[in-house]
Structures are given as C-alpha cells and as structure tokens.
C-alpha cells in the first residue's frame, strides 16, 4: 500500500516536472496572456484618481440602490485610499474582475450545455463537488509549479474556485423552465433556437445572475488567499502583515476587502433584480 502511494506521488511529481520542462512555452504563453489581462484591467482602474473612482462608484450605487448606499460606498472607497491601500485595493479588484471574466466565459456556456444535456450535467456534478470540497489553496500548488510566483497563478486558482456556482446555477436555471412554457413553445411551432432564446433563457436569467454573483464572491475569497503566492493586492498585504504580526495593517486591509466585497455584491444583486 505504502509503495503504491509512493509510486503515485512520484508519478505526479515527475509529470509536473516534465510539464514544466517540456511544455514550458505553453505555460509561459498562458502566463503572458493572464498577466496581460490583469495588467490591462489594473491600468484602467488606476487611470482615474481615487476620488474620481469613488465618485463613479457612488453614482452607480445611487442609481442602483439609492442615495444612502451611493454616499456610503463613495466614503468607504475614500477611506481605503486614506488607509494608504488604494493601489492594493485596485489590484485586488483587477484580480477579481480578470478571474471572473475568465470563469464566466467558461462556466456560462458550460452551464447552458449542462442544463440542456442531462448526461453532461451528471458527468460534471462530481467534478464540481470535488472542486468545492477541497480546500481552495490546494489549487495554488500545481499552478505555482507551472506558472510560478505572481498574479497568473492567483488567477488560475481563482478561476477554478469561481466556476462551480456559475455552472450549477446556470444549468439549474436552464433546466427549470416551467413545463407549460415548453409546451407553449412547441404548440406555436418554435424552433430549437427560438425555444432556447425566447423561452428557456428568459426564465433562467435570475438564476444565472445569482450564479454570477456567487462566482464573484468566491473569487473574492480566493484572491485574498492567493496573497500567499504573490498575487499582489490586499491578500498579499494581509499575508505580509500576518508574518510580521502587524495587526493594524491586517485590520486595515480586511476593512478594504469588506468594502470591495460589499460594493460588488450589492451592485450585482441589484443588477440581478433588475433583470
């Protein structure tokens, strides 16, 4: 038994080494693309000064959720800057946005397919269960072996963690079209595409939006954990503060994370309700 385990471990290790030796160009390419995406988003976010971003966020919050939320959001962002954490806050936001964009680009179509094809759904379920039960920092290890230290590794691990809720809730939304509407579609002679876009999809939108919101929240959690691998942002600030027992800084960074999370959560929930 023990020898089997040792052999298995050796095979996994060797496979990783082999991949990093022989397929380095692939992973270097992936790394360049991921870091490019992250840098691009971060550059955009850092373009306006912090007070302009606070005003923009305040205006959006006002329109979506009312004056109180708008003012509160803007003040909270200004507070992040006042704590000297503005670049880190924006780095974290850039990581979350980049990871969510990739995660949703994969999980929304996959969720739709799973909703339409029960077999695919049955095949995906155990994989999603596995992803969601393992401790999330597990995904950092293979990523760090192949992509090295930095935001690219953080992004890959975050994408993996963020995908399951969006896949599940999209599939659920597509599957739960009330039967009478499916009959209606058939009775008026709808084609398969019309059936999907005119009947199934509109009924699935609330569930899909809930999935997007959940994915964003998972991404936030993971991006902070990914501070260990040098992701940059508030996660790394907290990780550094833990190592030096700098409690004040870790509390500041935690507040900034809460501010960002609440802003994005409430805004995406409002968007979900509107649809």
């Amino acid at each position: 038994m023990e020898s089997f385990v040792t052999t298995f471990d050796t095979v996994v290790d060797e496979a990783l080494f082999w991949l990093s030796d022989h397929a380095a160009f692939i992973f270097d390419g992936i790394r360049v693309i991921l870091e490019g995406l992250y840098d691009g988003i971060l550059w955009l976010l850092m373009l306006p000064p912090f007070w302009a971003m606070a005003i923009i966020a305040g205006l959006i919050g006002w329109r979506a959720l009312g004056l109180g939320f708008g003012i509160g959001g803007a003040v909270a962002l200004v507070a992040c800057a006042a704590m000297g954490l503005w670049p880190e806050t924006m780095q974290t936001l850039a990581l979350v946005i980049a990871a969510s964009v990739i995660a949703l680009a994969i999980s929304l179509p996959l969720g739709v397919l799973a909703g339409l094809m029960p077999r695919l759904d049955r095949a995906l379920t155990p994989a999603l269960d596995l992803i969601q039960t393992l401790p999330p920092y597990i995904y950092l290890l293979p990523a760090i072996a192949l992509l090295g230290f930095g935001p690219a590794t953080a992004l890959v691990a975050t994408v993996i963690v963020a995908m399951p809720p969006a896949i599940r809730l999209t599939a659920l939304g597509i599957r739960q079209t009330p039967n009478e509407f499916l009959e209606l579609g058939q009775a008026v002679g709808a084609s398969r595409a019309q059936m999907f876009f005119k009947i199934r999809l509109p009924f699935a939108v609330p569930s899909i939006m809930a999935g997007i919101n959940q994915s964003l929240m998972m991404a936030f959690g993971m991006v902070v954990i990914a501070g260990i691998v040098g992701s940059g942002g508030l996660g790394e600030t907290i990780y550094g503060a833990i190592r030096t027992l700098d409690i004040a800084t870790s509390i500041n960074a935690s507040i900034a994370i809460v501010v960002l999370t609440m802003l994005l959560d409430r805004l995406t929930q409002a968007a979900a309700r509107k649809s």
Partner: protein
Amino acid sequence: MAARLLANKNNRVDMESNEVLIDCQSVWKVFGERSAEAIRSIAERGLTKREILKEYNCVVGVSDATLQVLRGEIFCIMGLSGSGKSTLIRLLNRLIEPSLGKVLVKGRDIATMDAATLRETRARHIGMVFQSVALLPQRTVLENAAFGLEVQGVPRDERNRAAEAALAKVGLSDWKSRFPRELSGGMQQRVGLARALTSDPEIILMDEPFSALDPLIRRQLQDEFRQLTKDLGKSAVFITHDLDEAIRIGDRIAIMKDGVIIQEGTAEQIVMNPADQYVADFVAGISRLHLVKAHSVMVPVDQWRRQSPGLSLDGLPHCSPEADIDMLIGKITGTGSDAIAIADGGGIVGVVTTRSLLLGVRGEPEVRAAA
C-alpha cells in the same frame, strides 16, 4: 341571458360544410417503460387497460379514441381528471406522440411529418390555449399576443397589428402595454385566447382554459368564446371537466372515462340517451329546458290519435321541431291547450302532449317511457 344562450344554441346548425379538419383514428397512448411491448400486445391480442397495467406495468392514457372535428364546429371533450382528456388533446397536435393509431390534420398524418412541417402545421393551422395560460411574464400583453407570429418570423409592425386586432376581439385593447401580472385571471385567459387567434389558425385547441376562473367570469368567457369562434368561423376542440360548460359551448360532446370515449353526440342526444349509468349520473342534474327539443319529446301522430280519440289536430297550436322545452311550456301554459302540433315543412310530424313534455323535462323520451 337566456335569450342570448338560445341564440347561441341556434347557430349550432351553422356548420357550413362537413369538411373534416381533425381525423383521429383509433388512437392509443400508453405510458411506461415497456409501452412498446404493451402496444404490440394490444394490437395482437387486444388486451384491455387493466390487463396492460397488470402485465406490463404501463398506464393506458388514451385507449382507441376515434373522433372527427368538422370545420366550424366546437367539439367538447368532457371527462374527470385522469380520464385522459388532456392527453388526447395533446395527441391532436403531437405534443404527445401517439403509441398507435393515426391523427390526420386537414388530411395529413401528423405522425409522419418532419420537424419543419410539423412546426409549420402547429404555427399556422392549430392554435392552443392552456389552463395555466402560460403568458411569458417578461413580455407585455401585446408581445405575448404576438408571440406566435414572432416565432414565425413575421416583421414586428405586421405582427403587432395582428395582435392588436386579436386583443380588440377579446376586449383588451387598453391593456396591450401592461404585463401579465397586472391582469386578473380572466383577462389573462383572454390574452391566451388572443395569442391563439393572432396566428389565425383554423383549429384552436382549448385545454381546460376556464377551469381556474370563478363561476361568473367563467360563464361570461364561455359565451364570449363560443360567439367569437362562430363569428370567426374557427373550429375548436375544448377540454373540460364540467358538463355544464361542455353543453354551453359544444356543438358535439365526447365523454371520456378511463381513457375511453364512452359516448359522443350533441348535448341533446347525450342527455336524452345516455350510453351507460356513468353518463346517466352525469346528466341527471342538467336542466333540460333549453337542451331538449320538440322532436325528442313529441309522440308520433298515430299514437296521439290512439291515445286521444275524438280530438282533432286542427285546433292545436303549432311549433317547430327545434322549439325547446322552455318554449313548449310557454305555448301550453299560454294557450291553455293540452297538446302542441309539431309542424315541419308544412306537414305535422308529431304531437307534444303535457305528458310527453313532463317526461321530457325528466330527460325521458315518450317512446321509451311507454315501452
């Protein structure tokens, strides 16, 4: 109300032609994992519903249903829940595939149609209205009414015009930019009807459309539906669990029980000659006043002469064979005569006596009571 109902009943004879729009020939539907085997043994050994359940653990939804829907008629299928009526109506537009038998729509077998032809047939020839209405909640009333044409790829202006016209017919023009949730149940069902009418199909399948509505609204919609269908010259298959509704609406009625059509005929035929005790129990509480006509309660002239020697036909008031019991009672109480001569095309075809009239009110034809 009574006068209007009477007017409605009178256009029963309006079926201009005898063109068969839906021809349902010995259709079976068997549900269950071993339905294929069950069907084979029905075809080969003629097993009954109970035997099928026992041997194959399959449920027979519809058993050997044969019916024809003619152009311009409203055909009601009446049955309690579990009688197979909802399955039967879904077999007519192939929302459910028949296990055995044929359904011809305008002479074409829908079971052999390819997907495109089937879609086309459903889109253009058979509209459907559901008990649950199934209005798309994210669309306005107008967009819902135009949905059938939208699916057919009709340009927006054109389909909106057709939808507005259909909404006007059901009296909902003012509500077109509202959302379904803002409408009452009765109004929602009107939108459902308008949606079916917008595509201008020849046949409308009505799957218990008014069952969920309160009685007053329901009656109103029944009358409106019948009038509208007749005015537009549409044919309809109307499913209901309510015999009163079937009688109010239907030109012909089929009564279903356990997947079998146990009787088919006009309301008068069913009330006067129930096929079995089940139907008899059903019709027991139905008022005959406007349903039973003179030709069903009259006695032949010879018999009348034998029963009432010395009386002459000449002194009797006259009525047509289509006069209903309500009118006959009015005639007898109004004129003081004990009998009414029934005249058809110049000749006297029979006599309604007080006795035959009373029997008729109870739903018993004079001939059967005498025998």
